[in-house]
């Protein structure tokens, strides 16, 4: 009977609670910012044929690069100029040799290595994660491209675009945060003209972050290439930023 009382208590506690029901036409679920809904190929009802003509425009414009138009499709599409498509693809991303991916994936099959660690190997190979490599990886490992992209875009150390020649990394360890890392980062962003994680147009610098350096006893710390700049007072930050900006101008 005490158990029943407990059950009664549980149910009555839910009585005044807010309902989860979303009354659809009037109310809508607020989707996450990155949600893009589901893909589908529109099929022309009268003819039963797909409306897609494999123009690869969607592939070009997909903001998260997870669309891959497979023009050898089962929808019985008209013949497509495959050569033109692959030419356009390589023009967009530059030529990337996807040969070594197969080996990495084979290793993955044998050892059950996680996706993120394969992606790190891929990055070590190319310096970043080229779309063709992700594409090939998803094909070889039979992992949906969206999943591959999801892991690639959420891990801080994985890059989806080629890095600049020099990495400018602001330390984000607690000591540096207290020491004003945020303002240092702001100053560098202003000087280089890119946000954190971005690469300058001339491919010279990539602004990134590290978590902890040898010099963190004297915060804030910025690592430029192999040089460690520490104890950055506001004037020193300004000087550093100016130096970086000047070198850009010189080249």
């Amino acid at each position, binding site marked *: *009977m*005490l*158990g*029943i*009382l407990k*059950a*009664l208590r*549980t*149910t*009555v506690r*839910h*009585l*005044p*609670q*807010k*309902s*989860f*029901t979303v*009354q659809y036409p009037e109310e809508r679920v607020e989707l996450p910012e990155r949600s893009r809904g589901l893909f589908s190929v529109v099929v022309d009802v009268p003819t039963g044929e797909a409306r897609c003509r494999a123009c690869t425009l969607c592939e070009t414009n997909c903001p998260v690069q997870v669309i891959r138009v497979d023009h050898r499709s089962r929808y019985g599409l008209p013949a497509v100029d495959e050569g033109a498509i692959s030419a356009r693809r390589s023009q967009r991303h530059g030529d990337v040799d996807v040969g070594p991916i197969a080996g990495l994936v084979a290793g993955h099959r044998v050892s059950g290595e996680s996706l993120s660690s394969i992606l790190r190997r891929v990055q070590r190979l190319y310096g970043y994660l080229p779309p063709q490599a992700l594409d090939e990886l998803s094909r070889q490992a039979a992992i949906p491209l969206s999943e591959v992209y999801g892991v690639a875009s959420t891990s801080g150390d994985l890059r989806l675009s080629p890095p600049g020649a020099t990495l400018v990394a602001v330390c984000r360890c607690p000591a540096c945060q207290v020491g004003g890392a945020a303002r240092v980062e702001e100053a560098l962003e202003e000087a280089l003209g890119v946000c954190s994680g971005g690469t300058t147009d001339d491919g010279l610098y990539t602004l990134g972050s590290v978590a902890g350096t040898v010099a963190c006893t004297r915060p804030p710390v910025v690592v430029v290439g192999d040089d460690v700049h520490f104890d950055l007072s506001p004037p020193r930050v300004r000087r550093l930023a100016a130096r970086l900006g000047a070198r850009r101008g010189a080249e």
Partner: protein
Amino acid sequence: MDLFLDILRGLAAVILAYSFVFISALVNIVFERRTLAFMQDRLGPNRTGPQGILQSVADSFKMLGKEDFAPAAVDKRLFTLAPIMVMIGAVAVQLVIPYTKGWTSQDLNVGIIYIVAVTSFTVLAILIGGWASHNKYSLVGALRSAAQMVSYEVPMILALLVVAMAAGSLSLNDVVSFQSGYQWFVFYMPLTFFIFWIASIAELNRGPFDLPESESELVAGYGTEYSGMRFGMFFLNEYAGLTIMSMVTVTLFFGGWEGPGQDLLVVYGVSVIPFVWFMLKTYALVFALVWVRLSVPRLQVDQLMAFAWKFLIPLALVNILASAAIILWAPQWKWVMAGFSWVLFLAVVVLFDPLQRRMLRRRRAKSPMLTRG
């Protein structure tokens, strides 16, 4: 002239009783659906009418619009009789219920016995319906239902007898006036109320005792072959039963129509305010029935029977013997009764689980294959 007035009065009472059954059924269906929904963090029906209050009206019109279908193999006369008969209990009980000060349709001096007798019509109707359907599912469902209702009628009557002994009368008006001054029976015989209430839930075929027609497990029990408004009658009766049984409970244990402001508004010798109190108490109990239905999982069929025969009936017997002795011999018997009833009631509530667990452990020790029941 007097005869004419009596007939008119009787007619009014019957019409009132019937409309009460239908209206309360419709109200209860919406009430239950919405309460369950809120308890499950949903909204429930809220589209038909303001806050969905017209939902069951719409549903019953849908039912009325359906084909009046009877399968070829059924016993036509009995098949038709059952849904009509199922209402009798709910309607006839209202004859003796004192709704308010000055309104009892018929103050029978054997009111309690009358209630017990008349509510059995439901069992009969269910049996007839199951039998007439010529369908094994219906028959099995009907027999299960009848077995359950007959079993739980025993503790219910035993509990009612205690009330009758204490009040010294079988008339419901006397029972109510005996409880006046807020000396409600529930205060000094909670155990009796407890037994009566559990038995009445089982009588109503409601969760956790709703096996005869457990929606989620069985074919629909005795109602398998019924559709349209014939099914609707069974359904309405079941939900009207919530209110009717709660009204009986309120009359017997919660002082009936008693409440503050009794004589504020009197129309033709009938007080209005007590009626409001009566309905408020009734719907508090209806809410409790809905609440229990949602909270407690359904019993197994053997557990159901074991609970009635091995637990509830012995408890009711102990209760009735002790109560009779107390009423007969103890001076100031209300205090003695309160002490006895509360102690036993709390003991049952607290000790039920540990004792049950111990019993199960022992049985499992004897036969390791046994995991439940």
